[in-house]
């Protein structure tokens, strides 16, 4: 790999221990994946924020970096934390957990990272442009930025994204290169998808089948960004899909090579079967929306459905602090609170310690959440559409 004189100096330790350590990680990744050079990144999104996910080892690693003066060079956002950073006490998050979570946030802040914890940075002020090179790590945000926006990022691990933020560059390989953005499998969708959860089911099914391939979808007539967010998130969770194309909908779909690809058909029975497979529980103790973080449109839809209703069991809607603020101004939060629901910001059901908060069965409309909740939160899952989930809590 070609390094500039300046970059050689970093490896020689002239820019300090932290820079050397982090640049060496990028350099080694670049050598493994045969990058020709380092390229500047426009923005970074760092995963590995929740204390629950990274534990003491991750916390100590971050504090070590921060104490040695690591500072980011580009706009850098964070993945969800393990709790609502303002409202954690009221929502019942454990005190000792909160203490450690706040230590982690302090370390990030010291490094100049914007303390907005969200898996939808593109809805909250970190929006890359078409063909911009970025280094993002949250798997659904990677999928959205690559596929729906047409920006270019590999699936970065938490530490490699942090290294890119602090060094301002990433090795030029993988999805940064046009030849690697070509589809490797065709998905023929032969069923009408109505609910966002239908897109989640499709994504979960396809991710399982194609693992880390690049799917090219046909037969999806229309989908808004919430639905594409649900589709990509589920594929990245059940598989390792970092980029997909949808005929007629995503920006690179027209220009990629799609001849001679193996084809997988997905019909009604596959979607129905996926709903059945993801349902491991009977009745939810709690229903959680917003995986990935809810958009303003999703919150407004829920406010409509909850207006004047009375919930018997808890409903959480997870979102970013910025979207919560907008929802507040529109009066949605009040409507939802009156019905007995909660808007939860900065965190989500997957990275928060819900299993320690007395919940055993969680209802979700997200294929990604349905994938992670059993293993990581020891939850039984009810995977259903928004109408059935809301109805069940009334």
């Amino acid at each position, binding site marked *: 790999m070609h390094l500039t004189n300046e970059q050689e100096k970093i490896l020689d330790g002239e820019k300090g221990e932290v820079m050397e350590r982090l640049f060496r990680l990028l350099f080694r990744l670049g050598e493994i994946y045969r990058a020709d050079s380092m390229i500047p990144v426009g923005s970074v999104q760092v995963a590995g924020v929740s204390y629950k996910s990274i534990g003491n080892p991750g916390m100590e690693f971050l504090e070590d970096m921060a104490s040695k003066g690591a500072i980011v060079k580009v706009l850098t956002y964070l993945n969800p934390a393990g709790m609502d950073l303002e409202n954690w006490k009221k929502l019942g998050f454990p005190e000792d957990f909160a203490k450690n979570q706040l230590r982690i946030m302090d370390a990030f802040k010291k490094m100049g990272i914007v303390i907005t914890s969200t898996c939808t940075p593109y809805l909250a002020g970190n929006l890359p442009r078409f063909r911009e090179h970025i280094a993002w790590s949250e798997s659904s945000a990677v999928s959205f930025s690559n596929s729906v926006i047409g920006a270019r990022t590999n699936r970065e691990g938490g530490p490699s994204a942090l290294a890119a933020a602090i060094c301002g560059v990433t090795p030029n390989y993988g999805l940064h290169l046009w030849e690697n953005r070509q589809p490797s499998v065709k998905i023929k969708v032969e069923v009408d998808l109505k609910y966002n959860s239908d897109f989640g089911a499709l994504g979960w099914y396809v991710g399982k089948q194609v693992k880390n391939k690049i799917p090219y979808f046909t037969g999806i007539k229309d989908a808004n960004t919430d639905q594409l967010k649900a589709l990509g998130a589920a594929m990245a969770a059940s598989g390792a899909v970092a980029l997909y194309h949808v005929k007629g909908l995503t920006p690179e779909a027209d220009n990629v090579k799609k001849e001679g690809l193996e084809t997988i058909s997905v019909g009604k029975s596959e979607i129905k079967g996926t709903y059945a497979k993801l349902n491991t529980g009977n009745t939810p103790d709690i229903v959680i929306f917003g995986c990935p973080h809810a958009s303003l449109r999703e919150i407004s839809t829920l406010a409509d459905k909850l207006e004047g209703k009375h919930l018997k069991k808890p409903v959480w809607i997870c979102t970013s602090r910025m979207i919560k603020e907008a929802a507040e101004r529109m009066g949605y939060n009040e409507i939802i609170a009156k019905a007995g629901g909660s808007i939860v910001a900065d965190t989500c059901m997957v990275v928060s310690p819900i299993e320690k908060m007395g919940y055993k069965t969680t209802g979700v409309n997200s294929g990604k959440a349905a*994938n992670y909740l059993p293993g990581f939160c020891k939850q039984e899952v009810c995977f259903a559409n928004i109408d059935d989930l809301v109805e069940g809590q009334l």
Partner: protein
Amino acid sequence: MKGRTISPGKAEGEAIVTSEPIGFYGGIDINTGIVIDKGHPLEGKSVTDKILVFPCGKGSTVGSYVIYGLKKNGVAPAGIINKETETIVATGVILAGIPCIDKIEIEKIKDGDKIFLDADKGVVEIK
């Protein structure tokens, strides 16, 4: 067998093999090294001090920290062998200093095989 060095070092141990991808985040307990991914062929088994053999990573990108955490907690595998190591696993093993190579025909390794892994040279020996 000869492969590609992902993270240097040497390791020796018993192979624990799966043909399914592994997602470290939510898939392996950071404190115990036990596989907790529901329905995974390795569910309930410990990866600690083993040579962990799997085709590729999957799932969340927080997996790198989990690999690093397994090492810090003293419950990490002694070495990792993949068909194709993607960035998440690569970042984790480099940071943790766990020997790892890929581009290996992992079908030739059986559960319980005694493995010598020389990741400096990118070589796997089945004893």
